[in-house]
């Protein structure tokens, strides 16, 4: 009795393994504790046609005919009837098919215990498999007397291990998503995790529905085998593809497709590349609950091919088990949520880009119109002189908006096209002009900036940069110098100097403004950060200008750094062009 209780406790403990490790651990424990010759652990395939060997202890794997066991066997009967079965004459039993095991190991008796997952506290269960025990002794042991208690313990422990497995898969999938910045890379990472982990699938693909084009588009795959060369966007399904597992599953059901000896797999339109010929497909719908939780909508499908079982030197493709489907369904839910979030984000970015594009065009047109009027002297002819500032102000605001948009756009890019340019001719001259013009429209009493001809700027070597992007950086520095000038004195003096080494040109930009308070110097490039004195002078600023400018300089293989805080000196580091 004491040893029975000890075994029950040890069985419970095995539930700390995930469901992939549990079968081996349990069969080993049972063989050692119950004086068995061997023990096998089977779970049912998702189509409930076969029991799949998940673990065993005591036999050589090579002795098995197959890791798949049909249901017209003792184990199958125990599974179907949900009753423990005892068979005392394996040699004669027609239901026992692995006679080689009987001969080699002298098997006489089998006890087949149905395995279930406990669904709730009322012990409602879902049958999932069978555990087969092969006792050593032919005489009666006390095992039958506590077999029912043992069965309950195994069921509870296995239930825990399945939950544990789900948690582990969730952790891996979520970490794959959080390491990704876009939908396709997130989905690809999820597939990699599935392939490398306990599910042991051979290949997989994810299709998502494109509402606009009304087709299921391939978003991630471990490799698709197609008969002809197709572009990735051609590997899709639409409503004409009824009958193909992928499209059928998109209608909301789990589709299992499997080849038999006489039949090549009821094939899909495109299949994954696998080492072994495709034998089984499992296609699961990816769904997402609506925001008000009232309905679920299918967003796509996850298709997996070939469940692989490798036991020592034996290797076999088997059916997907019920647990596999459970875990993959769970993964599908996460994919549904993830794809919704990413697509939502990507759609918003796309709308935003369209709005930016339209706004930029309008601004550009307005600037060109004002320019045209100015150049042809039309404005002066009808505008009172003291109100001419309105035209200049308007032009400058339009310029500001356009440049802020450009700066935002550039800082969000992953790369910028660089070319060899003249820093002084292409950028610094325009910076000086911008400073002088802005100072004029801002009515600054004393505004001065270093003359380029006096500072040796025309001797600077060519640099590698993007002119427009670099100009947005210098524009930001000029705007800051003017905006954060000392208002009491209403003056702004900017000093430019330069330094050159073998790799970079450094432009030092110093202003005599309100400065940066001591202690804030480490935060000036942080997104959204604003010093106390800057907020006091201009409460409406965003604190994004320097962050974006630094990012742009990094994209151009340079940098933007703060050299001193009183007076403020910023250093623009620009990569020299190769000679």
């Amino acid at each position, binding site marked *: 009795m004491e040893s029975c209780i000890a075994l029950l406790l040890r069985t419970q403990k095995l539930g700390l393994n995930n469901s992939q490790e549990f079968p081996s651990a349990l069969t080993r424990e049972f063989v050692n504790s119950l004086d068995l010759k061997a023990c096998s652990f089977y779970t049912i395939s998702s189509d409930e046609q076969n029991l799949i060997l998940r673990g065993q202890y005591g036999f050589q794997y090579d002795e098995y005919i197959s890791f798949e066991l049909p249901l017209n066997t003792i184990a199958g009967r125990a599974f179907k009837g949900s009753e423990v079965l005892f068979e005392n004459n394996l040699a004669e039993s027609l239901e026992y098919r692995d006679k080689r095991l009987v001969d080699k190991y002298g098997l006489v008796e089998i006890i087949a215990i149905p395995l279930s997952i406990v669904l709730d506290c009322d012990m409602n269960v879902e049958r999932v498999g069978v555990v087969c025990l092969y006792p050593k002794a032919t005489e009666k042991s006390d095992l039958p007397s506590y077999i029912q208690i043992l069965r309950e313990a195994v069921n509870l422990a296995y239930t825990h291990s399945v939950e544990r497995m789900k948690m582990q898969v969730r952790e891996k999938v979520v970490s794959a998503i959080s390491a990704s910045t876009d939908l396709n890379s997130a989905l690809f990472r999820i597939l990699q995790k599935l392939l490398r982990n306990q599910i042991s699938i051979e290949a997989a693909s994810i299709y998502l529905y494109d509402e606009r084009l009304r087709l299921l588009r391939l978003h991630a795959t471990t490799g698709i085998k197609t008969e002809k060369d197709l572009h990735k966007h051609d590997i899709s399904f639409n409503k004409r593809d009824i009958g193909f597992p992928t499209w059928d599953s998109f209608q909301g059901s789990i589709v299992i497709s499997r080849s038999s000896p006489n039949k090549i797999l009821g094939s899909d339109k495109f299949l994954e590349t696998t080492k072994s010929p495709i034998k089984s497909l499992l296609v699961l719908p990816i769904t997402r609950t609506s925001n008000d939780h009232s309905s679920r909508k299918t967003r796509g499908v996850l298709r997996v091919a070939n469940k692989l079982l490798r036991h020592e030197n034996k290797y076999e493709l088997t059916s997907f088990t019920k647990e596999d489907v459970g875990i993959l369904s769970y993964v599908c839910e996460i994919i549904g949520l993830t794809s919704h979030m990413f697509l939502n984000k990507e759609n918003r970015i796309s709308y935003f880009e369209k709005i930016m594009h339209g706004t930029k065009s309008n601004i550009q047109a307005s600037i060109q119109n004002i320019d045209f009027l100015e150049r042809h002297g039309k404005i002066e002819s009808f505008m009172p002189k*003291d*109100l001419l*500032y*309105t035209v200049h*102000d308007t032009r400058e605001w339009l310029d500001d908006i356009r440049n802020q948009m450009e700066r935002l756009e550039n800082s969000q890019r992953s790369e910028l096209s660089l070319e060899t340019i003249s820093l002084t001719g292409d950028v610094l001259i325009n910076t000086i002009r911008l400073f002088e013009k802005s100072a004029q*429209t*801002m*009515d600054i009493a004393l505004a001065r900036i270093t003359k380029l001809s006096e500072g040796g700027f025309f001797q600077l070597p060519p640099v590698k940069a993007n002119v427009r992007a670099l100009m947005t950086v210098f524009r930001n520095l000029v705007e800051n110098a003017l905006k954060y000038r*000392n*208002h009491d004195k209403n003056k702004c003096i900017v000093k430019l100097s330069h330094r050159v080494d073998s790799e970079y040109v450094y432009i030092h930009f110093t202003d005599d403004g*309100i400065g940066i308070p001591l202690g804030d110097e480490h935060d000036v490039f942080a997104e959204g950060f604003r010093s*106390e*004195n800057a*907020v*006091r*002078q*201009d*409460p*409406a600023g965003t604190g994004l200008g320097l962050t974006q400018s630094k990012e742009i300089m990094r994209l151009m293989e340079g940098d933007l750094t703060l050299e001193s805080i009183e007076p403020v000196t910023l250093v623009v580091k620009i990569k020299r062009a190769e000679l």
Partner: protein
Amino acid sequence: MIYFVDEDYRKLRVLVSELKINGFDAKIIRDADTAFAELSEVDKSNVDLVIIDVMLAAKVNGNTSKYSREQTDDYHKTGLLLLDDLALANPSVFPKYAIYLTHASNDVLVKNISISANKYGIKMLRKKDYDTAYYFGEDVAKIIKELNGG
């Protein structure tokens, strides 16, 4: 004289011009501290209207300023505090001759401005409502007329 208390000098210029075209004198005061210093002693006879921007700058040197970042919620409601101070310091002019002018879109802030405007019985104008300076000038003229019993 119409006083504009707003740091955004350039964006106000056209409104100031519009008011001048309508026959008013107008002056811009850039920050809350300067505004308090000047308006706490201004005589009623010299004031037509004081237009106070709510998100308003203060003097850069915190040691010489009445207004702190914490007190003003990052300078988002400096104008509300300024009017409270002016109402105590110069009750013959404030709050009666003041109005709020704001670009705020944040619901909480708009509600706070509205509460303060109701408390003092003054108007609150939204910058977004004025696509043209002309209508702004027209509304300001109407408010001044009402204040003068007309």
